């Protein structure tokens, strides 16, 4: 199994797409980023963000100072052009209609290799722009990983491209990274279940604070 060194440069297509997204949105619509210094400069980390729009994963990767691997819905990998591109953008599939052990394994493996991984704690895009409830499985993953959690709030991407719209409009977007939260790595399922409510509450309150426009 290939092990990627933590500081390896991401593929050229990743860097190109990130540059286009970052530069393009900043100049055409407005892109404001706060708290980038909270992304650890080395070692593993989890970015845990709200999910308002298809733009979120693109822009988080684009603005983040380090390469970020991301969970993406499995159906995206079937699409003829988007599918091959998605995996080159360091995404890996998650089958959301079942507990997907492979997605959890890959996320933990990337963290063990020292990479950053992004997850969307609500599990899917919001229909109304409001923060949804956290998915228990994502919090279990966070507690299983024990890596620093960088809470991330995105505001404005719902106005730019709501889930019910077929195309985006150029609207300003703000991305805020909060100070890393540290949760102990819990190997026992019963320990994770006991710690889950408090961890959920702590993460969601941070995301709610950071995602206010």
């Amino acid at each position, binding site marked *: *199994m290939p092990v990627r060194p933590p500081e390896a440069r991401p593929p050229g297509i990743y860097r190109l797409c990130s540059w286009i997204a970052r530069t393009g949105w900043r100049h055409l619509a407005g892109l404001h980023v706060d708290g980038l210094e909270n992304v650890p400069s080395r070692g593993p980390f989890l970015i845990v963000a709200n999910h308002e729009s298809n733009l979120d994963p693109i822009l988080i990767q684009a603005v983040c100072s380090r390469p970020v691997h991301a969970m993406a819905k499995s*159906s995206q990998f079937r699409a003829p052009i988007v599918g091959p591109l998605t995996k080159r953008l360091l995404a890996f599939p*998650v089958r959301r209609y079942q507990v997907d052990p*492979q997605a959890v394994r890959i996320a933990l493996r990337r963290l063990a290799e020292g990479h950053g991984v992004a997850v969307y704690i609500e599990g*899917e895009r919001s*229909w109304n722009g409001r923060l949804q409830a956290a998915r228990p*499985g994502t919090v279990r993953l966070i507690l299983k990983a024990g890596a620093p959690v960088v809470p991330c709030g995105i505001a404005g991407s719902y106005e730019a491209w709501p889930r*019910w719209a077929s195309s985006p409009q150029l609207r300003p977007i703000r991305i805020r990274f909060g100070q890393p939260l540290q949760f102990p790595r819990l190997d026992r399922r019963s320990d994770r279940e006991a710690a889950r409510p408090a961890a959920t509450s702590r993460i969601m309150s941070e995301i709610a604070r950071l995602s206010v426009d």
Partner: protein
Amino acid sequence: MAIRDLFRACPLCGGNVESGDRCAECGTRYRRARGDRIEARPPGGAAQTRPAVEWLDALGRIEAEATTPVSDRVIVRVAGPHQEPVRYAGEVIGFVEQFGPRQPGSATLTDAALRLETGDGGRVDLPIDELSAIQPTSNSLQLRMRDGRLFSLRFPDTSLVRWESLLQTAVRRRWTELSRGAVTEFLPRIGCR
């Protein structure tokens, strides 16, 4: 995705919002305005523009459909048992379901089952209590059964969210009847307290 995928019913009258984002009952047309705002233009009336969340709040005051059966045109795809591995740099990074051909037909929801009938005479009944997950995707509703079968349903004439809401209501009712408890989540699997 379309505005009709957002509305399980017309926020002004409770009718079905069809393709073209037009209400089949009152004829109101919906279209996206600036940002997250949606304009409603009733026939002969003045246009109203509000944020989507306000339309949804208005819709919340309209009762969800409670009666069955409900029937609509549907395009069905069924995933085979084989899931394709996704590889990157020689590593298997996950698996992706493989759906079969599109089969136009109809979907009929009753209290106990969802019946799918396709134009070629095919018919399958999916018992409500055998559903294990209900997942809306960009343009379809994916239903996973306890035996592992996966169905993708696309509704050309009506809202994806309407069908998601209908199925969720049916599952809640059925689970209560079977004394399984109050359903609290539909993904990654239907679960209760």
